[in-house]
Structures are given as structure tokens and as C-alpha cells.
């Protein structure tokens, strides 16, 4: 038997072994296990702010962290967020007043992602230019501090670990960890066979998960660059992914119109969030602070709210006039923000 034949046989045997091992621990599913849990209350949130300022489709938004709460004595403490639009701008918003605090003009208007550094000093953006551009918000005039240029496909997502490291995912099927001092890739994460569309950092920042057009989610060790686990189940592109706050599970959203929860320690899908009446792809998702509620943005202009334990739909955020492209819940869990192709961001609670 040639080595190629041997490799194929071993691969099949390993896949069978993994499936058997998953089945062996698959003694129930989340919805069944949670049958005794009291249902989440019907969630009816109101639009508290509509942020108007972008002139074209919004593709991404990201909340600033608790490290960067700003205060003006007349208003009290407020929380910042960044949004990115095809109008070629990043806008920094004071969410409480709804005012724009900063505007960052982009070299390329084909932006697909934006990110706020935990410190609040930096923001990043990227898209069809294949680059991740990092800006310093704290210099007297906002300055470009780095252009991270090595991906050979579009930049789909970026997330800062700190002011010196950032993670990116790309249409070139890779993810990368960059050193912001040198502007170079420290680690390239290779294993997906389709465009990487999204990533989420674990709370302890030792691992991250990625979702891709190969319908797979993967868990990676940031320091050794290795893919540790692969999660199957979706039947189309995974556009959105998030760690559960407990760090032992992840939630994914897909063009197959479902969201799923995968438990990392059981190494398998434990619940699927779907409805026969829902036939729009999921574009984005965010979790409430306890993880109990999933806010999932869809192509059908709505954001559906799911009970993460019981798998039931418990609410909907309707109000956008086009696809919901991004969602985010800030660290204090006090609201959810939705951004849309209708050019508006809405804040709900």
C-alpha cells in the first residue's frame, strides 16, 4: 500500500474514532437537560437610541471595554463604541448621548470589520484591501500607527488582545496573530479550507475560535498556533461566532439560518437554535452577560433573541429597514447594539 493510501485509511479511522468518542459522551442534549429550568422571561426591549451618521451600509461595530469608560462631569460616565461603514468611515460614538466623538476616514471604503482595543487607545479596521489598519485615537490628531499587510484575502474580523497584539481572520482561509510593534505576523493559523469569516477570543485570551465558509468552527491555541478542536454541524458558511461567558462553550451563526452551541469539553454540538419559519441567514450574534440570551442578527432585517439553554425564541428586535449586519453587548451587559445595512445603529434595552 502506498503512503497516500495509508494516510487516507488512517484519516478515515481517526474520523470514525472521533465520531464514536463524541457519541460515547453524547448522553443527552442541552435542551433536554434544561427541560426543568424555568423559561427565560419574554424579552421586550425598546430602542433607546438610533445613531444616525453613516451614509451607507454598516458592516461592523464593537464596544469599548470597562477599561475605557469616559466621564464628563455634566453627563456622568459613558461608554464608547466604534462602527464601520461602506461610506469609508469609522465613527466613534458616545452611546449614552448618541453623539459622535470621532470620525476616522478610511483609505479603503470596503470595510468589513472594526475593533476597539481594550485600553481604548487604538481602533482597527480592514476589509477588501486585505489589510488591517490600526489607528491611535489618543494623539492630538488621529493617526494611522500600522498597516498590517500580509493576508492574501479580505479581512473579515480583527480583535485586539492588547495595544501590542491583534488577531485577524481572512478570506485567504487563515487567521493570524500580529505584533503591533513590528507590524509582522507572529503566528499564522492554518487549517480552514474556506474563507474565515469571524473570530472570538476566549475570556482568558489563551485560545480563540474561528468560523469559516467550510461550515466548520475551530478552536486554536494562540501561543502554539495549533488547531485543537474542530466543530461540525453547520451546512453553510459560519458568519458569526462568540465564546460563552463561562468559556466552556461557543455559539455560532450561519448562512444555514441556524445558530448552534458547541460545548468545548464535550467536543460537540449540544443545541441548535432554529425555527422552520426562519429562512434567512444569520449575520451576527452577541450574548447577554450571563450567556442566557443570544441576540442573533439575520438577513431578514430582524434580530431574534434566543434562550441559550432551552433553544426557544424569546423575543425579537424589529426596527431596521435592511439586513442586521452586526450586534454587540457591552461588558456591563446594559444594552444590545444592532447595526444595519440601513446605515443606522440602534441601542436597545
Amino acid at each position: 500500500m502506498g503512503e497516500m493510501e495509508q494516510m487516507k485509511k488512517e484519516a478515515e479511522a481517526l474520523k470514525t474514532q472521533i465520531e464514536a468518542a463524541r457519541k460515547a459522551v453524547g448522553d443527552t442534549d442541552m435542551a433536554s437537560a434544561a427541560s426543568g429550568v424555568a423559561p427565560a422571561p419574554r424579552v421586550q426591549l425598546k430602542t433607546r437610541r438610533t445613531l444616525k451618521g453613516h451614509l451607507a451600509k454598516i458592516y461592523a461595530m464593537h464596544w469599548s471595554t470597562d477599561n475605557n469608560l469616559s466621564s464628563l462631569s455634566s453627563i456622568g460616565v459613558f461608554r464608547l463604541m466604534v462602527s464601520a461603514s461602506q461610506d469609508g468611515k469609522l465613527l466613534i460614538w458616545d452611546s449614552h448621548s448618541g453623539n459622535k466623538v470621532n470620525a476616522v476616514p478610511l483609505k479603503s471604503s470596503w470595510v468589513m470589520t472594526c475593533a476597539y482595543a481594550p485600553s481604548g487607545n487604538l481602533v482597527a479596521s480592514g476589509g477588501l484591501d486585505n489589510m488591517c489598519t490600526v489607528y491611535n485615537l489618543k494623539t492630538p490628531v488621529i493617526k494611522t500607527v500600522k498597516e498590517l499587510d500580509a493576508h492574501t484575502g479580505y479581512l473579515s474580523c480583527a480583535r485586539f488582545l492588547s495595544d501590542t497584539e491583534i488577531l485577524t481572520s481572512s478570506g485567504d482561509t487563515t487567521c493570524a496573530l500580529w505584533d503591533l510593534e513590528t507590524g509582522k505576523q507572529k503566528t499564522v493559523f492554518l487549517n480552514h479550507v474556506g474563507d474565515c469569516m469571524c473570530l472570538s477570543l476566549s475570556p482568558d485570551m489563551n485560545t480563540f475560535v474561528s468560523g469559516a465558509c467550510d461550515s466548520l468552527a475551530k478552536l486554536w491555541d494562540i501561543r502554539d498556533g495549533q488547531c485543537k478542536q474542530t466543530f461540525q454541524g453547520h451546512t453553510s458558511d459560519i458568519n458569526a461566532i462568540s465564546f460563552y461567558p463561562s468559556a466552556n462553550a461557543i455559539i455560532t451563526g450561519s448562512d444555514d439560518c441556524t445558530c448552534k452551541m458547541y460545548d468545548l469539553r464535550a467536543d460537540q454540538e449540544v443545541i441548535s437554535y432554529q425555527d422552520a419559519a426562519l429562512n434567512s441567514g444569520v449575520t451576527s450574534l452577541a450574548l447577554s452577560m450571563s450567556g442566557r440570551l443570544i441576540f442573533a442578527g439575520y438577513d431578514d432585517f430582524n434580530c431574534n433573541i434566543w434562550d441559550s439553554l432551552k433553544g426557544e425564541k424569546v423575543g425579537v428586535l424589529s426596527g431596521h429597514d435592511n439586513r442586521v449586519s452586526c450586534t454587540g453587548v457591552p461588558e456591563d451587559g446594559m444594552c444590545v447594539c444592532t447595526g444595519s445595512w440601513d446605515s443606522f445603529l440602534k441601542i436597545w434595552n
Partner: protein
Amino acid sequence: MHSYMVSKMSSKMVGSNNLAHARRMVQQLRVEASIERIKVSKASADLMRYCGENAKYDPLLMGIPASENPFKDKKPCTIL
């Protein structure tokens, strides 16, 4: 599929050497096969406990009293 700005790539060839690719795939599968797994019943119980313990700190789940809601419109101030 999204009607995105460009159509997404699909099934990119990973490496030009099929044997090297097959070896990498087997190596990856070995890593994934070797992990310890816990029962879904235990994983679910832990998740339910986590949600239960943190529910009271979850403003969107519990509701936010108007007086504590930073997004509730405040009455406008008049400077006399």
C-alpha cells in the same frame, strides 16, 4: 450565501503537494482524536449552573429599573 461585495472563495487548495497535505491532515486528526471529553449531561449541568449563578447580574435578562438605566431619556436641564 450572502450577496456579499465579492463572492467568497471556496475549497482553496492547501499546498501543492497532496502527500504533504494528507500527512498534515492525519496529524491534525490525531490531535483532535486525543482530547479528553466529558459527558454532555455534565457539560449541560455546568452551563445551567453558570447561567443560574449569573442571572441576577444580567441586566437584559432581569430588566433595568428606569432610574438606573443610562439610556433612559433624562429630563432636559434648563439653565436659569
